[in-house]
């Protein structure tokens, strides 16, 4: 079975002017399976946003091919079908909302696709319920919080019923509460709707929730695997200037000091459970 999204030997450079080009990706390969939840992690300028834009043909590679469900993004006649298949949510929640009323904005995508009016109505209502914004369907976007706007943007994508959604640092401009809400919505898209998710971020704790983490560094893939496996490589990540989730970091330090911790620890709960086995119930009682 071939992958759902495939970047094969892709090279890409931004052209500043006729003479100057900034190479971003060189002979880059990545394939994403249908229904997967892939987090792409890395610093600004590592090429992760370019990967996002390549996935739905906003950018096309200078060499190599990008296939979306078998369709080459270079072919002009595939464009609409590719964008119907892969949708995007961007960092700035303000700059992707088109209409002056929440529900009209959610309808924008399906309207562009030429969906029947009654069907649009149904999808819009459902999508707004799915992201928990139904009560605010008549609100004006500029009166919403960043997290709410981002959820409206996601509803607008759900209403188009894409197979895959690419989110480019959707939480970078949000407060902790907004981040949590958006993350919860994204998890639901993947788990309940089976939508393939490519989630670009620089937050480790968000990446830890994915099925697969791809760590990018200077246009290359540094690590690729489950969050558990990837975050075990704390020295590689640190060399690239990235962190690992603190629970993992602490567990690794303790293990290096000889503590018998088993498995690859990712979350606070897992670590807490293991520490329970490690630590005496009451230090005071043992000493006496």
């Amino acid at each position, binding site marked *: 079975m071939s992958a759902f999204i495939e970047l094969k030997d892709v090279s890409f450079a931004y052209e500043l002017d006729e003479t100057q080009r900034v190479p971003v990706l060189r002979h880059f390969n990545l394939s994403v399976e249908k229904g997967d939840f892939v987090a792409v992690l890395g*610093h*600004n*300028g590592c090429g992760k946003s370019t990967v996002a834009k390549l996935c739905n043909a906003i950018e096309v590679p200078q060499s190599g091919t990008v296939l979306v469900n078998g369709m080459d993004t270079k072919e002009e006649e595939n464009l609409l079908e590719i964008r119907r298949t892969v949708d995007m949510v961007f*960092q700035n929640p303000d700059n992707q909302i088109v209409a002056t009323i929440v529900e009209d904005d959610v309808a924008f995508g399906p309207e562009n696709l030429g969906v029947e009016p009654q069907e649009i109505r149904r999808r819009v209502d459902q999508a707004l319920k799915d992201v928990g914004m139904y009560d605010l369907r008549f609100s004006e976007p500029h009166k919403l*919080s960043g997290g709410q706007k981002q959820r409206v943007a996601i509803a607008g994508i759900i209403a188009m019923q894409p197979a895959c959604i690419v989110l480019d640092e959707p939480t*970078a*401009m949000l*407060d*902790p*509460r*907004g981040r949590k809400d958006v993350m919860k919505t994204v998890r639901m898209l993947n788990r309940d709707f089976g939508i393939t998710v490519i989630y670009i971020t*620089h937050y*480790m*704790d968000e990446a830890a929730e994915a099925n697969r983490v791809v760590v990018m560094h200077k246009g290359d893939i540094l690590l690729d695997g489950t969050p558990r496996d990837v975050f075990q490589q704390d020295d590689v990540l640190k060399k690239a*200037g*990235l*962190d690992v*989730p*603190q*629970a993992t*970091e*602490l567990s690794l*330090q*303790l293990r290096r*000091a000889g*503590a018998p911790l088993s498995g690859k620890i990712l979350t*606070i*709960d897992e*670590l*807490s459970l293991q*520490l*329970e086995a*490690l*630590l*005496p*119930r*009451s*230090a*005071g009682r*043992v*000493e006496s």
Partner: protein
Amino acid sequence: MNDTPILRTENLTYIYQKGTSSEVAALQDVSVEIRQGELVGVIGHTGSGKSTLIEHFNALKKGTAGRVLLDGNDIWADKSKIRAVRFRVGVCFQYPEYQLFEETVAKDIAFGPRNMGLPQDEIDRRVKEALTNVGLSEDYAEKSPFDLSGGEKRRVAIAGIMAMEPQVLVLDEPCAGLDPRGRATVLQMIADYRQKTGCTVLLVTHSMEEVAAIADRILVMNQSRVAFFDTVDNVFAHAEELQTMGLDIPQMTQLMLSLREKGYDVPVNLYTVQQVYDTIFARWKGGVHGAQ
């Protein structure tokens, strides 16, 4: 006089749309004292009143009741001197890179000092120093601010405030939207600046981790009131209450809380991996020895 707080509010209250049916209190009865030279972290979730509070510190908003005192003097005592207050309390707002407008970095940084009416050689000195403070080389001086990367723009904007050499530097979410390396750089830069100048610094943020790393005291705002204003250790000792306020407490503090729930008598005011490592290591070794 080290005893006079540099900045003080007395029962400061601010009500939006006062007198209408849609009255909203953004600040209620806030009385705080900021000491000379300290680094205070200001924390609270969106709508807690923390942004409104800092807008009062440099007279962009005027309280509907109460006073703001700078060096013991009411900042609104003489309305014609409001601009002078803004030079003494320098506020750098969220996403400050969007305020850049000049042709060159140097000119943009000089905007504040020029408004202060300083002589040209003094302005030049300050621009140079501000660039050093934010860790940018002199090569940047003649570049266009619009050609810089996001992180560099942010630093130029912060330099623009530093160049006014304010007594109090207020930074509203200086790390918002930056990647981990960018965040670390900016935090380090702030810590160094304070070390070097002895300037009083207020750091507004959502991130407890950031505050814990560099602040002396933490001011926690909740529902337009002061919830806590104490040393980092003492505030984190209230970790559970902070959580119920909807604040994101550091992961390490969460771990300590969960151990405490399991019946361990551990402190909850730990927030770095190193601190927790030390505590757990000691407990574990102690336990191993005890059992032997």
